[in-house]
C-alpha cells in the first residue's frame, strides 16, 4: 500500500533487498528510478527537518537574528511548560482513533460485503466531505453541536449529556467548547482515513475462506474472529496510524470546538510560531512531537508486525 511508503521511515523496516547486479547494463537503473523519490525526500523532508532541529538549538530574536548556541535548555523548558498539552494531545488522538475504528470497521465491512450495487456510491459518500475544506467541516460542527440544536436535544433526552459530564468530557451543560466536542471533531475529520484502508483490506478478502470456515462448523462470530479480523489487520494498522498521527498534531479542532483547557500541542506550536515569534521553542516542540510520534509508531508497528503489511 502506498500509505506505507512514508511510514517505513519510522518503522526502521527491513532494507530493500540489494538490486540484482548480475547484469552490468541494468546496474544503475534502480538507483536512477530512486532519484525522484530521494530528491523529494531530501527537499521536502530532510532539509526542513535539519532547519527545524537547527532552529530549536538557536537563541536570539527576530530583529537581531538567531545564532546557533546549542541551547538544549529550550527543550527542557518547552517540554516542562507544555507537558500537559503533550499528554492531552496523545490522549485525545488515542480516543479519537479508537472511536473512528469502532465506527469505520462496521462501515467498511458493510460497504465491502453488503452494499451490492451501492458500493461505489457509498465510497463516494465516505470521501465526499473532502470536497470542502477541513476548516469549513470543522466550523460546521459548531453549528451541529450548538446548544439549541437537534443533536444536543436528542443527547439530552437520551441522558448522554449526564453520562458525558460524569466522564468529565463536558465541563458544563453545553456540548460545544468541551473535550467531547474536540474528540468528536477529530473523529469525524479523520474518519475517511480509517475507513478507506479498512475497506481496501476487507474488500480483498476471499469469501471462500469464510465458506470454508462455515463448512468446518465455525459460528459466524468465530469465522469473523479467526478469518476476517486477522486478514483485515493491515487495514486496521494503516487506518489507526493515518488517524492517530494527524490527530495528535491537529490544532483546528481544539481551537474551534474546545475551551481553554482542551489546548492541544499543535495549537501551542502555532501560537509560538505565529504570535509569540519564539521560533526556537516552537521548533523544539515540533521536533519533540515528531520524535514522540515516530517512537510510538515504531513500537506500534513492531508490535503489530509489519512484514505482512508492506
Amino acid at each position, binding site marked *: 500500500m502506498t500509505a506505507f511508503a512514508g511510514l517505513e521511515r519510522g518503522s526502521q523496516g527491513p*532494507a530493500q533487498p540489494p538490486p540484482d547486479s548480475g547484469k552490468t547494463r541494468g546496474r544503475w537503473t534502480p538507483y536512477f528510478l530512486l532519484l525522484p523519490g530521494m530528491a523529494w525526500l531530501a527537499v521536502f523532508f*530532510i532539509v526542513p527537518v*535539519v*532547519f527545524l532541529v537547527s*532552529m530549536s538549538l538557536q537563541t536570539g530574536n527576530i530583529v*537581531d537574528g538567531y545564532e546557533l548556541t546549542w541551547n538544549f535548555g529550550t527543550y527542557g523548558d518547552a517540554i516542562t511548560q507544555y507537558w500537559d498539552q503533550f499528554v492531552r494531545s496523545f490522549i485525545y488522538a488515542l480516543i479519537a482513533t479508537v472511536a473512528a475504528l469502532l465506527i469505520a470497521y462496521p462501515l467498511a465491512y458493510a460497504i465491502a460485503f453488503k452494499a451490492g450495487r451501492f458500493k461505489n456510491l457509498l465510497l463516494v459518500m465516505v470521501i465526499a466531505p473532502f470536497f470542502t475544506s477541513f476548516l469549513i467541516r470543522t466550523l460546521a460542527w459548531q453549528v451541529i453541536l450548538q446548544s439549541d440544536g437537534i443533536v444536543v436535544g436528542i443527547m439530552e433526552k437520551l441522558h448522554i449529556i449526564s453520562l458525558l459530564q460524569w466522564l468529565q468530557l463536558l465541563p*458544563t451543560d453545553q456540548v460545544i467548547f468541551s473535550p467531547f466536542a474536540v474528540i468528536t471533531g477529530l473523529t469525524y475529520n479523520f474518519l475517511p482515513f480509517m475507513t478507506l484502508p479498512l475497506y481496501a483490506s476487507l474488500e480483498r478478502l476471499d469469501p471462500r475462506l469464510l465458506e470454508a470456515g462455515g463448512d468446518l462448523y465455525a459460528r459466524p462470530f468465530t469465522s469473523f474472529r479467526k478469518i476476517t479480523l486477522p486478514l483485515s489487520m493491515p487495514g486496521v494498522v494503516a487506518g489507526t496510524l493515518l488517524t492517530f498521527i494527524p490527530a495528535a498534531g491537529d490544532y483546528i479542532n481544539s481551537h474551534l470546538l474546545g*475551551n481553554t483547557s482542551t489546548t492541544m500541542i499543535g495549537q501551542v506550536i502555532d*501560537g509560538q510560531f505565529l504570535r509569540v515569534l*519564539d521560533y526556537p521553542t516552537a521548533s523544539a516542540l515540533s521536533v519533540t512531537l515528531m520524535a514522540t510520534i515516530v517512537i510510538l509508531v515504531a513500537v506500534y508497528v513492531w508490535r503489530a508486525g509489519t512484514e505482512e503489511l508492506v
Partner: protein
Amino acid sequence: MNNAPTQNPESHEPVISPPWLRGLTRRRVLGGAAAVGGMAVLSACGTKGQKAQGGQTQAADKSDTEKIVNWSNWPEYIDVDDKTQKHPSLELFTKETGIKCNYTEDVNDNDQFFAKIQPLLAGGQDTGRDTFCVTDWMASRLIRLGWVQEIDQANIPNLKNLDPTLRDVQFDPGRKYSIPWQSGFTGIGYNPKSTGGKKIETIDQLLTDPSLKGKVTLLTEMRDTVGLVMVDMGIDPANFTDDDFDAAIAKIQKSVDAGQIASFTGNDYGKGLSSGDIAACMAWTGDVVQLQADNPNLGYTLPEKGHMAWSDNFQIPNMAQHKKNAELLINFYYDPKPAAMAEDYVNYISPVVGAKEVLLKEDPEVADNPLIFPSDAVRAKSHVFRALSQEEETAYNAKFQALIGA
C-alpha cells in the same frame, strides 16, 4: 518527444556519483544525510537579523506607466454591490484616476499576514503589494523592522480630513508610515437570551459573574483582551509597567482557572454569540453592528470605565512597484464621499472627517448609529495600548500565549 529524459541504462549517465551510492539502502542514505546534515549544516543555518540594514528599500516607481495599484485588505472590509459583487467605491476610483485597483482580501489575521510577507520583506524583495492594511501594533512592528516606506503626504492632500485624535499616534508621530483605513472599538457583546435578559456592563462582570460560567469568550488579540482588563482595573493601557501587565494577566488567569472562559477567539465569535452558546464576549463594534442586522436583540456595551480603540492602517511596503498610485488611492478614500461609500457597508468607525455628513443625507440610519459614529463623550473614553519594544512584545506575547494555552 525528443526532450524526454533518456533512461537508457547503457548510456551510464553520470547523474549519480557511484562511490556514494554503492550498496545503497534507505537506512544508509538517511544515515549519511543525517551525518552530513549534522553539525556543519546545523551551524550553517543561523538566521540573520531581519531588520532592514539600510539596503535598498525603494523600487523604481512604475506608477506613471502602469496604471494599477495592488491593495491587500481584510475580508468584508469595503463596500460591495450586492448584485454585481463589485466594489462601487473602487470603480469610482478607477473612473476618477484611471488607475485600476487589484483588491485582494488576503489579510485574515495580523500574525498570519506577517508570516506571509516576512520572508519577502526580510529578503528585501517586492511583496507584490503596493499597500496593505494592518492593525496598529503590527504597523508598529513593521515600522520598527524598517519594512515599510515613508508615505509622501504631498500626494495625499485630503489627509487634512484625518480625525485629529488619530494624527499623532505613539508608534508613528505625524503619520509618516501609516494612515488609518478604519478604526473600531473593543467592548462587550452579549446575547440577552443566554444571560437571562441581564445586561453585561463591566469587564469584571464578564470575568466573574457565575451565571455566565463557561459561556464567555475573550479575544486572541492580546492588546484588546489585556487592555480592556487593565482599563477595568484602573490601569491606563497607554502607560503601564510590567507589574501592571502581570496583574491583568493574573486576573484573567483566575477567570480561566474558574472555568468562566470558554475560549479565546478571533472574529469567529459571531456565530456563537448569535446562537447563544456564547452568552457574552469581548467584541469589536463593526462585527456586532453587522450581527445586529440579523439578530437585533444582541447587546453591546462600551464599559463605563472605558474601552479599547484601534485602527487598521494603510502601509506601503518596501520595494512596492506603484507607490504613488497607492498614495493616490489613500488620498481618494480621504475624500468624505468615497469614505462614506465604504463606511455604509463596513460599519466600523471612519477616520475621515466629513463622512458622517455625507451619510446623513444618504443613509441616516448608519450615520446615527453611535457605534459607527460615536459621540465625543464616548471617544474620550477610548484607550490605546502603548507601543511595545521588541523585548516587551516577545515577553508579553509569551505570557499571554501561556494564558490562552492553559
